[in-house]
């Protein structure tokens, strides 16, 4: 299993992702933002941080980094792409995922624990989870307020592209459990094919009991299970409509 973690200038969760992925025994490499090719990779991770200082808008400048052409190509060819926090913001800016990020509704950086409900357990990143499973992970962002217009939200919901939603202790999405004001309490979404996942919570920080939790391992483990063919594609409702079922 070959995993690449892209390093943009200003990425700061690259090493954290590297270590978390390494703990699964995967062959993980850093990919410099000035590279162009992603040949030979099975999974590409866009890590958190402040690429280009988050100047202008989070992710706005990084999307023009040379490697992003390769990421778009890789994704279009069906490769697995995981964007975490700043990585999610970059995926939105480059258009691989729909919508945009706004400043948190309480306009401050927020570092805290949240609960996520698995809304679609039939994606490569959640195939080991059961629907409705609640995962605990940390968030750390100032721009995590997911926004899309109503038509886009309806489409996302209809096609099962909403993968994670912020919920409370009872597993219910409430305004209080929504840490940043995201539309529909959205914490993570995929493409229609399910091969690109963007999420704000830092799953790489929830991979070790010593650091307070291991729920992030569900997502990485799912991706590796999917890649190793342990999950039949047929079992996955790859978020699409009709023919893909």
């Amino acid at each position, binding site marked *: 299993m070959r995993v690449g973690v892209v390093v943009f200038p200003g990425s700061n969760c690259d090493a954290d992702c590297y270590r978390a992925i390494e703990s699964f025994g995967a062959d993980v490499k850093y990919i410099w933002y000035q590279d162009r090719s992603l040949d030979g990779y099975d999974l590409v991770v866009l890590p958190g941080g402040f690429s280009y200082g988050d100047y*202008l808008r989070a992710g706005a400048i990084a999307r023009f980094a040379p490697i992003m052409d390769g990421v778009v190509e890789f994704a279009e060819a069906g490769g697995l792409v995981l964007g975490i926090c700043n990585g999610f913001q970059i995926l939105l800016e480059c258009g691989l995922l729909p*919508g945009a990020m706004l*400043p948190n*509704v309480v*306009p401050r950086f927020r570092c805290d624990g949240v609960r996520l409900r698995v809304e679609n357990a039939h994606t490569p990143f959640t195939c080991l989870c059961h629907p409705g499973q609640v995962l605990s992970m940390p968030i750390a962002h100032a721009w995590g307020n997911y926004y899309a217009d109503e038509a886009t939200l309806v489409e996302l919901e209809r096609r099962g592209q909403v993968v994670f939603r912020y919920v409370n202790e009872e597993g219910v999405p409430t305004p209080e459990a929504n840490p940043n004001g995201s539309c529909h309490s959205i914490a993570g979404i995929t493409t229609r094919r399910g091969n690109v996942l963007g999420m704000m919570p830092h799953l790489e920080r929830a991979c070790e009991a010593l650091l307070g939790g291991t729920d992030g391992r569900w997502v990485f483990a799912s991706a590796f299970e999917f890649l190793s063919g342990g999950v039949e594609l047929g079992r996955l409702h790859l978020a699409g409509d009709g023919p893909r079922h």
Partner: protein
Amino acid sequence: MRFKAQVRVTLKESILDPQGSAVKRALHAMNHDNVLDVRIGKHIELVLTADGPESARRQVQEIADRLLANPVIENFSFDLAEAGGEAG
């Protein structure tokens, strides 16, 4: 020729602006009760060389469209003027 473009990037009307709301609350606390709305945007100045105003305008339009503003949430507008000698 040297031009100066002043680009204003603003949030679309339908988008909540938490920073603007916070400033509005602060203004009300300072007894500026008659402030009905506050919206925060960005002001960006570009100094560029171009053959003429038309090509400068086209280029600024493209720059704003592709990078300076995110069309999902933001609008932009700009003014263009010829900039003298050492401007910028």
